[in-house]
């Protein structure tokens, strides 16, 4: 049953939320030992929440469109009273005194929180191998990575351990694991979903989004969590146009282009799937051209690895042992800062903090951070030009299928290259999603990326739905 079907069934009283939760808990029992999607499974709480949903349905109330759907939350989303680690030792055991806005909205739609999922530490990574609590494994092949940084969320959905999940995407961290695990993953337009309660990595790039088995499930979830939030000053004030009612609208006349620059670094079997996706949309009535151009996209990786670490170096300064989280004592407060941060952060986080601090430092700001922000403008302009000619764009999500655990951990740059197709959408603030579209030569999942202009989620989801339908 999809999440949409589950929600409808529970709401109508045709299915018990408690049964749904038990089914997913059984899946967790069976597979979590191998997969390690979760840092924390909320079995007792989920059962209690499900019972409450059932009681409300029995009383004639409507809990909402996600009634009884078990939701897994990436562990950088604040959940009141429930440990939120961000995959890091430095927040091990920290219980936020408040819920993220998206968490409140999910609860308000009847969803049942089933657990906090594993992630690369502070969302810095592309494979979920940077977690302080051990890696997550790809449910399709336990020797492979699930992708990152929302690897736990993707794996939980792929393995049937959750109905839907939320992740965060700063340079591809929802779309990439979605692609590698064969599920749908959506990064909305920047500002469409409130970041209040998302532990910040790179503030001008971070967005929360759904991971789900189907396009329709992702659509319903996005409609629930999206929309203006006065607690987030970067939240778009205009009401978000709902997408879940639009999916069957089809792609007749939709102008589709494949982003040429983003195919350059991808494996041939991956590109083949993107080309096949283009043909499928054409058969469904779209006008597809194989060469759309976003020339500045080739600078995206470099710009990202200056901007994101810079903002992160500032966002992560607060982890200093003074108010919450890990503290390693020192003779004076400066020593405490040093000891706490050195013990609490993993090597990738330290590397990015160093990189970001350097990029902002006196004498280097203009050449690095300042320059990267100007390159960002070029990327925005190139996308805008492309969207004069096209309604949606297609590209690979990941340059390859899932790689082996440990294959890229020795060289940070090798790992960074994995984000080359996903980063440009974050820099531009435009929405992008990954739709499962067959497998690569090795039989592992391949996702195709659909990109739309800012606030163009409707066209994006229509194309995604058509792609999904074309797989039969």
């Amino acid at each position, binding site marked *: 049953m999809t999440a949409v079907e589950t929600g409808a069934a529970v709401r109508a009283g045709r299915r018990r939320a408690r049964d749904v939760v038990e089914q997913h808990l059984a899946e967790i029992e069976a597979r979590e030992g191998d997969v390690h999607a979760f840092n924390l499974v909320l079995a007792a709480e989920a059962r209690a929440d499900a019972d409450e949903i059932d009681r409300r349905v029995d009383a004639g109330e409507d809990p909402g469109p996600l009634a009884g759907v078990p939701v897994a939350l990436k562990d*950088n*989303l*604040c959940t009141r009273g429930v440990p*939120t680690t*961000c995959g890091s030792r430095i*927040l091990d055991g*920290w219980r*936020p*005194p*408040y819920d*993220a806005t998206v968490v409140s909205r999910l609860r308000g739609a009847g969803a049942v929180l089933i657990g906090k999922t594993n992630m690369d530490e502070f969302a810095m990574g592309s494979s979920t191998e940077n977690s302080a609590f051990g890696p997550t494994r790809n449910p399709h092949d336990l020797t492979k990575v699930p992708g990152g940084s929302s690897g736990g969320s993707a794996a939980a959905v792929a393995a049937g351990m959750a109905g839907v999940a939320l992740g965060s995407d700063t340079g591809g961290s929802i779309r990439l694991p979605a692609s590698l695990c064969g599920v749908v993953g959506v990064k909305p337009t920047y500002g469409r979903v409130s*970041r*209040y*309660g*998302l*532990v*910040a990595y790179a*503030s*001008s790039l971070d967005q929360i989004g759904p991971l789900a088995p189907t396009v329709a499930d992702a659509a319903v979830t996005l409609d629930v969590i999206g929309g203006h939030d*006065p*607690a*987030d*000053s*970067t939240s778009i004030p205009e009401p978000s146009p709902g997408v879940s009612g639009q999916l069957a609208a089809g792609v007749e006349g939709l102008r589709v282009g494949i982003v040429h620059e983003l195919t350059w670094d991808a494996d041939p079997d991956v590109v083949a799937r993107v080309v096949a996706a283009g043909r499928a949309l054409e058969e469904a009535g779209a006008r597809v051209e194989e060469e759309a151009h976003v020339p500045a996209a080739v600078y995206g990786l470099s710009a990202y690895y200056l901007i994101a670490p*810079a*903002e992160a*170096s*500032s966002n992560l*300064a*607060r982890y*200093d042992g*003074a*108010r*919450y989280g890990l503290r390693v004592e020192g003779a004076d*407060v*400066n020593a405490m*800062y040093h000891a706490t941060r050195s013990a609490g952060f993993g090597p990738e986080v330290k590397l990015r903090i160093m990189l970001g*601090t350097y990029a*902002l*430092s*006196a004498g280097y*700001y203009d050449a690095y*951070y300042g320059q990267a922000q100007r390159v960002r403008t070029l990327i925005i302009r190139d996308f805008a030009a492309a969207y004069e000619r096209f309604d949606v764009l297609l590209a690979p999500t990941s340059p390859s299928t899932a790689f082996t655990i440990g294959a890229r951990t020795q060289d940070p740059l090798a790992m960074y290259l994995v984000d080359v197709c996903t980063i440009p959408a974050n820099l531009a603030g435009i929405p992008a999603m990954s739709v499962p579209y067959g497998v690569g030569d090795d039989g592992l999942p391949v996702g195709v990326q659909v990109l739309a202009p800012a606030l163009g989620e409707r066209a994006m989801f229509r194309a995604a739905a058509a792609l999904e339908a074309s797989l039969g």
Partner: protein
Amino acid sequence: MTAGGAWETVVGLEVHCELATASKLFCGCRNAFGDEPNTDICPVCLGLPGSLPVVNEAAVELAMRIGTALNCEIRPSLFHRKNYFYPDMPKDYQVSQYDEPINVNGHLDLPDGSRVGIVRAHIEEDTGKTTHIGESGRIHGAAYALVDYNRAGVPLVEIVSAPDIRSGEQAKAYVNELRAILVAIGASDARMEEGSLRIDANVSVRPAPAGAPLGTRAEIKNLNSVRSLTRAVDYEARRQAELLEAGGRVVQETRHWDENAGRTSTLRSKEEAEDYRYFPEPDLAPLDVKAAVVLPKLPAERRADLAARAGVAPVDTQLVVEAGLDDLVAAAVQAGVEPRLALTRAANEVAGRTEAPDAAAFVATLRLEQEGTLTATQSKQVLARVVGGGDPAAVARELGFEALAAGALASTVDATIAAHVEEWNRYQMGEDKLTGFFVGKVMAATGGKADGRAVTALLRERRGS
């Protein structure tokens, strides 16, 4: 000149004032002084993971009022992050304004007519408060610090003056005028003793002929009162002048003012300047508020207005305007009270009283004084009773102040003259300073009821000049 003849003192002041908003700059926590520690905190002002700031519109409005009152250009502006580590900083960065501040290029005209440039007045968030416990470094294990974040996130405007101030006195005048303005426009309580006004002084000296390049400056901190500011500026200017005359060099550093010892000392020597790694705050949108700012009358204008109505110089109205008594004095002048009398009595007898002054009682009392029914001393005593309202004539009777009949006074004066022939001769020869002698004698003889001016007038009349 505080530095000494060959040297010119150059001072710039950085004044932080806490804005009088109900809630903090980026969250809805109470902006209040004196609450129990850590009771006015939330995820935002505590900087908890996942929290985000949202700008308080009243803080922007007050910042624009300040900019307007200081004749600044109000510009589109951005927030920037200023990154550094300190326990009173919940996020280990402070959200402030850097190279695109809201107010720039203003000036403040002081009562003495001098003008001090205002470089900028920008918005930023306040930090928490740290209390040091125990002797640091002396007793192992006894030293530590406690932090209260109630103040973290309170909105501040930092007002940076140009280095136009030339003495401790002028620094004092600047701060007093600035405070008066901040209070008049409702932007801040501006109380140094409560920390809603904090001052750092940048002091340097240079050779006296104007036009010499600026000298190296020292920043003075820990100025807890206007008196400290004045003393510290003068001390530091002298210290630097003496140092330079002895062939030494002034070090650019932060110095601590010791109120008890009356001197500044090195706070700590820094090897290198702090690198704040400013970058635009990604969590906040730029500001460009177009609303027109309407200000109440500022102190300078009130002084000028009252001066024009009273026929005196603006500086003579300063005390009265500072006390908010301009309308009272204007009413008195309108009713025929002599302006200087009204100004003096208002400044000395009414200012500082808690009751709202009653104009009718004030005017009536001063008219009794003016016509000689009450002496100056009697007038002050009556005012003390009728400030908030009352009948001065009734109070005067109650206090036993009877008007001396004009004839009775003249005969007392004549009797006194007759009793002091030698002094009278000298007075007749032109020794005017004996006026006081005779007035004193007449006062004693009348039990204090004589009006000094009336006595003086009679003496002159008897003398014939």
